[in-house]
């Protein structure tokens, strides 16, 4: 008995991250799904926590938005209060303690990574609060496809270009093999001196097969209207709208 729960938007994702000599590359696809419907073609799954700490999320989309919003707020307050840059381990601990409190019911699976004064770090944080450290990893429904590429091609101390290409190829494998991933990808390259965000990148196989010559153009008045009324706006002079 009882009702079926409403279908929530899931990121149904491929997210990938890999460390290289002196930095870190993270990336995600941009498809959000609700069952078999593509709910959003260009959703942002690479979340900024601080200037040099980013989080990629898989799982329940609303939870990821809210958890990363909370983390970035708290980390910014921490930076202002201490006058130092926040560390990746701090972001991780805040995330895991929050998620553990909710016993896995907040469906956020995160890859938290970044560069801080102690070097580059990459962690994975599960919805139930489990965390692990990795040199490279993938998460989400497309992670199986992505991890094969990482396992085959990852090597320690790669150059920035090598790492970027590896993460992009792993993401493309995920987008190719997993129905819940696709449309476009976003990358972020984090180094001690600068953070570069790249995207949205649309791989060739994600483009529409041919340019659409066919256009549905309706002539003005082709829809039968029963009743129509136009409402002009009132001009309110007392209200100040010049923020």
């Amino acid at each position, binding site marked *: 008995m009882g*009702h*079926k*729960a*409403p*279908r*929530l*938007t899931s990121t149904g994702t491929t997210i990938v991250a890999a460390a290289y000599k002196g930095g870190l590359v993270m990336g995600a696809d941009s498809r*959000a799904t*609700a069952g078999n*419907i*593509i*709910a*959003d*073609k*260009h*959703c942002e799954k690479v979340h900024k926590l601080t200037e040099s700490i980013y989080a990629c999320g898989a799982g*329940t*989309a*609303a*939870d990821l*938005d*809210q958890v990363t919003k909370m983390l970035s707020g708290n980390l910014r307050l921490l930076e202002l209060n201490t006058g130092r840059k926040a560390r990746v381990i701090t972001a991780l601990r805040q995330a895991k303690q929050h998620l553990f409190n909710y016993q896995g*019911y*907040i469906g956020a699976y995160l890859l938290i990574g970044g560069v801080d004064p102690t070097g580059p770090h990459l962690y994975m944080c599960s919805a139930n609060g489990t965390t692990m450290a990795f040199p490279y990893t993938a998460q989400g429904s497309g992670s199986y496809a992505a991890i094969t590429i990482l396992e085959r091609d990852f090597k320690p101390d790669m150059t920035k270009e090598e790492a970027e290409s590896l993460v992009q190829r792993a993401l493309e494998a995920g987008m190719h093999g997993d129905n819940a991933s696709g449309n476009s990808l976003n990358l972020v390259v984090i180094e001690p001196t600068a953070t570069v965000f790249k995207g949205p990148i649309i791989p060739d196989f994600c483009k529409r097969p041919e340019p659409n010559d*066919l*256009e*549905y*153009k*309706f*002539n*003005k008045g*082709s*829809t*039968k*209207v*029963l*009743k*129509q*009324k*136009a*409402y*002009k*706006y*009132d001009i309110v002079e007392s*209200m*100040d*709208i010049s*923020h």
Partner: protein
Amino acid sequence: MSIMSYNGGTVLAMAGEECVCIATDLRFGEQMTTVATDKKKVHKVSDKVYVGLAGFSSDARTMLEKIMFRKNLYELRESRKIRPKVLGEMISNLCYQHRFGSYFTEPLVAGLDPDTHKPYICAMDTIGCIASPRDFVAVGTGQEYLLGVCESYWRENMKADELFEATAQSMLSCLERDAASGWGAVVYTITKDKVNVSTIKARMD
């Protein structure tokens, strides 16, 4: 049957060049029985900002009351009109406050920025995950049909009258295949100097 399709109903919003369209069907049902045929799911929040609430009707109404309450307080405190993006964020937070016992309604926001007239549309799920694409959004029982047909009908930089035709025709196509929506539709075309409210002729079965 899911509570989301208990009453039925569909809302669609499309963005054009300095204009947006938001359309709603008029059916209100209880499972397969049609109870009322004049139920609008789109509500005026401000001059150029409209919100659509599909899903379970009682929750949609409660949600609307909470939205109006918060929007009124915002406009009094800030002494300026609310922008559609702000309203979207506000509704999203309201939805997420009820994360583990959500209102069974999917909100949709469509409007123009009161200063720049930039169009804004967004839809969200029951717990407030915002999807804000540049083309079109749909919520409700006819969502699947609408997303498919809009993908063909929507074009870049449509003017108000083109946008109205595209929105109305998408809505009519959807009503043709969704049994839980129908009994006519109302399309609101929001432009920078007026709002056109048009009742569309549709099938009454």
